[in-house]
């Protein structure tokens, strides 16, 4: 019950405070309320992106922080800076991946070329090396 009483007293205090506001302040508050209501009716999409309360202080003045001059909020994806911030790491990752891939491929080609040249310079018949039986004999001999 104390909470209800406290709420009642707060409301009373606010009403009394509102009564003591000067004419100019009342006029500006009324005007701002009317403007806000009108915009809300004109642009129901704005309700999809609730405006953080600190930004309401800038209502009507326009702001670059995701709030256009007409008061509607925007997705961060509409900002080129935001898109660049997302795309740059992806592109960097892909470029890095390609570089590593090409470097590994070049390394493998060098290794294959070194093996093939040594193989071509060797005296033993290629057909012997190509035979799986020779590989088995090699394992057998090395295992002894």
């Amino acid at each position, binding site marked *: 019950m104390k909470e209800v009483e406290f709420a009642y007293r707060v409301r009373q205090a606010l009403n009394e405070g509102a009564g003591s506001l000067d004419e100019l302040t009342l006029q500006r508050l009324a005007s701002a309320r009317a403007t806000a209501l009108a915009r809300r009716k004109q642009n129901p999409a704005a309700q999809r992106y609730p405006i953080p309360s600190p930004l309401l202080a800038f209502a009507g003045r326009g702001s670059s922080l995701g709030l256009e001059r007409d008061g509607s909020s925007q997705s961060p994806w509409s900002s080129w800076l935001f898109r660049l911030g997302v795309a740059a790491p992806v592109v960097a990752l892909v470029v890095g991946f390609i570089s590593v891939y090409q470097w590994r491929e070049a390394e493998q080609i060098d290794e*294959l070329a070194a093996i*093939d040249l040594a193989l071509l*310079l060797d005296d033993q018949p290629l057909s012997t090396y*190509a035979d799986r039986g020779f*590989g088995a004999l090699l394992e057998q001999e090395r295992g002894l």
Partner: protein
Amino acid sequence: MPPLRFGAATCAIALALLAQAALGDGKSGPVHPTWGELSSSQREALAPLAGDWDKFDPVRKKKWLEVASKYPHLSPEGQQHVHERMGELARMTPQERVTTRENFVRAYQLPLDQRQALVQKYQDLPADQKKELAAKPTVRPETPRKPTTPPKAPAAAAASPKDTAATTRH
């Protein structure tokens, strides 16, 4: 641009770049360089491959071009020896080439006399014993296609006593 479309576009570009890196330039038609595009020294080094060159895939071409870059540094005897075996190696099936390289790399770790003796022993085996050996499951090296210590081409001179003059610079 909506986030979904932007994400899709970024992914498409990324995939295109990756595909280009993995598959080369992506153009259909002859893989470059064609035989006609090779320099005269490359054509001379790879002469036994002239008929098949334009059918090779890009990686294979790069590998042979790497071999060709070392060819001028071989002795005339070494060059002749390489030419005699080049066609045979190139005509093997991919699986045969893999087996050949695996066996060669493992055999190369043996001293020359042991290697020669082992090859001779294998060649002297009757055909049925060779088949029996071939049927055995082989223990593959840890990195079959990428041995950590590939034989260096200069050492090949030692592997070919008759080609003692066969040397490379690298």
